[in-house]
């Protein structure tokens, strides 16, 4: 649905994104991740036909964003990062205006606007001035204007920023409900959100893509180990040595933030489940086993590892490395 090839954008002398390529299949929700200033918004603005790229191509639903801009624009809904809305308009007339500009036929307009206000939970503020709405409500109106014409592709730049926890859950379920018929590309800094919402992620750092693919695949790629957390009451040196002696165990460390009080992280080769062995060991040594659990790698760790790895590599090489 979205195909981006060798996209580069320079703002004057600043290169915001460099040789970015990725693709998103129809019906998928893809998360766009990266630290501040990585170039997420820039890439999304190009996809949304707000500005042309310096070089490279981007296609949405088979149409080039530059040469067939109108075709692309008819098929997208865009929510910019700053959620720019006409503050001196009221919610319902504003959404009606957007629907009209987007070419929703007059006969369907009233119904579509009512429907989108319902879905984005703004019906109760439909007669209020947008400028007088709270940040969260403005965010929802922004989302409503993006989906009012029922576009095939949604480009959402940080859609849940500034919302309260309840609203975040509501907006997330709204986005989740859009999957299937819609292709969604969203950027965010809330990584658990990506794990909940997205089928795949694209991680971008300093203008270049550093990793992309389904979340599990990335976890596997960047954490080729299985991890177990244990809490054992016993002499720490002995506990460490004995556990390390179990076949397949790669390392035993104190858990982060603990101070040798018996909580350890055990890394084993991928696919090895060492929990039974640890249990046997504790029983045999008469140590008290208080806790034993396998932990999954979070996207957060993947993200930090990738971005930090990039930074380290950049420090050594003195410039931006591989893509």
């Amino acid at each position, binding site marked *: 649905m979205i195909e981006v090839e060798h996209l580069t954008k320079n703002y004057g002398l600043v290169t915001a994104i460099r040789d970015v390529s990725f693709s998103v299949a129809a019906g998928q929700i893809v998360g766009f991740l990266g630290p501040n200033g990585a170039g997420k918004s820039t890439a999304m603005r190009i996809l949304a*036909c707000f500005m042309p790229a310096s070089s490279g191509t981007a296609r949405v639903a088979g149409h080039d964003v530059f040469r067939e801009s*109108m075709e692309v624009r008819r098929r*997208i809904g*865009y929510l910019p990062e700053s959620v*720019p809305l006409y503050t*001196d308009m009221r919610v319902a007339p504003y959404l009606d*205006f957007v629907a*009209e500009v987007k070419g929703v036929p007059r006969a369907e307009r009233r119904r579509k606007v009512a429907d989108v206000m319902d879905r984005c939970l703004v019906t109760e503020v439909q007669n209020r001035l947008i400028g007088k709405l709270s940040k969260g409500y403005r965010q929802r109106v922004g989302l409503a204007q993006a989906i009012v014409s029922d576009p095939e592709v949604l480009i959402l730049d940080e859609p849940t920023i500034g919302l309260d926890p309840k609203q975040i859950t509501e907006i997330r379920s709204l986005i989740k409900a859009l999957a299937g018929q819609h292709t969604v590309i969203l950027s965010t800094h809330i990584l658990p959100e990506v794990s909940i919402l997205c089928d795949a992620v694209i991680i971008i750092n300093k203008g270049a893509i550093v990793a992309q693919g389904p979340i599990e695949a990335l976890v596997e790629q960047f954490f080729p180990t299985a991890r177990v957390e244990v809490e054992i009451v016993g002499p720490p040196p002995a506990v460490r040595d004995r556990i390390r002696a179990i076949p397949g165990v790669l390392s035993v460390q104190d858990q982060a933030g603990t101070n040798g009080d018996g909580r350890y992280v055990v890394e084993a080769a991928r696919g090895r489940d060492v929990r039974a062995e640890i249990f046997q060991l504790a029983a045999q040594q008469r140590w008290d086993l208080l806790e034993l659990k396998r932990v999954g790698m979070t996207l957060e760790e993947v993200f930090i590892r990738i971005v930090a790895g990039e930074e380290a590599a950049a420090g050594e090489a003195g410039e931006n490395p591989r893509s």
Partner: protein
Amino acid sequence: MRIWPIFKKELRLYFTSPVAWVVFTIFLLIGGYFFYSIFAFFTLASMQSAMNPAMGRDLNVTDSVMRPLFSNISVILLLLLPLVTMRLFAEERRSGTIELLLTYPVRDGAVLAGKYLSALALYAIMIGLTVLYPGIVMYFARLEWGPVLTGYLGLLLMGATFIAVGVFASSLTENQIVASITTFGVLLIFWILGWSADYAGGTTGKVLQFLSILEHNESFAKGVLDTKDILYYLNFTVLALFLTLRSLEARRWKG
């Protein structure tokens, strides 16, 4: 071309914000004052001429009231129209709404047309309100409608030009004040060009006279329709709108 929704939205915004009302009020106040003083002066003059028939021969309401009134109104326009147009693009840019507007499935040209026509419509309403003045004159004296109609056409064409310049200035900046001062400055320059035409003389004088915004408006109020004048305003307008389109496009590249 989806001009209509944009036109509607912009025109409604003029009336839901105080802009239209303030501009109308000030325009009618000052216009009314001009009308009153011109008309009062004319009444005085015609009373004197009744006693002195030699003077009365070239006294004529159309020439003595409507013509000065049109030229006074054009001065008010010079001051007020930049305030009407300054918002159109500058505000979209400042608030960032341009990022959404320019990603909707409408061409830049349609966005421009919608905005331009909304200001033009507001302006048409504004000068439409002044029909009151010739109405009053007609009540007291016989008025030739020809020069009044062409006078209004002249005002409309001149206003269309002012608005086009204003829209262009508004597309150049995100600051409304800068937009309005730029518009005013540019229009004023073209306004005063005609002044020096008289003593510049020769080709320079001709060129200056040709460029002067004011010069081209004179014949309308005399009841003369000259294609040269009409083309001057139309060309000026089209050029300003064309430059606006280029400026919108250039802004896109800059991001």
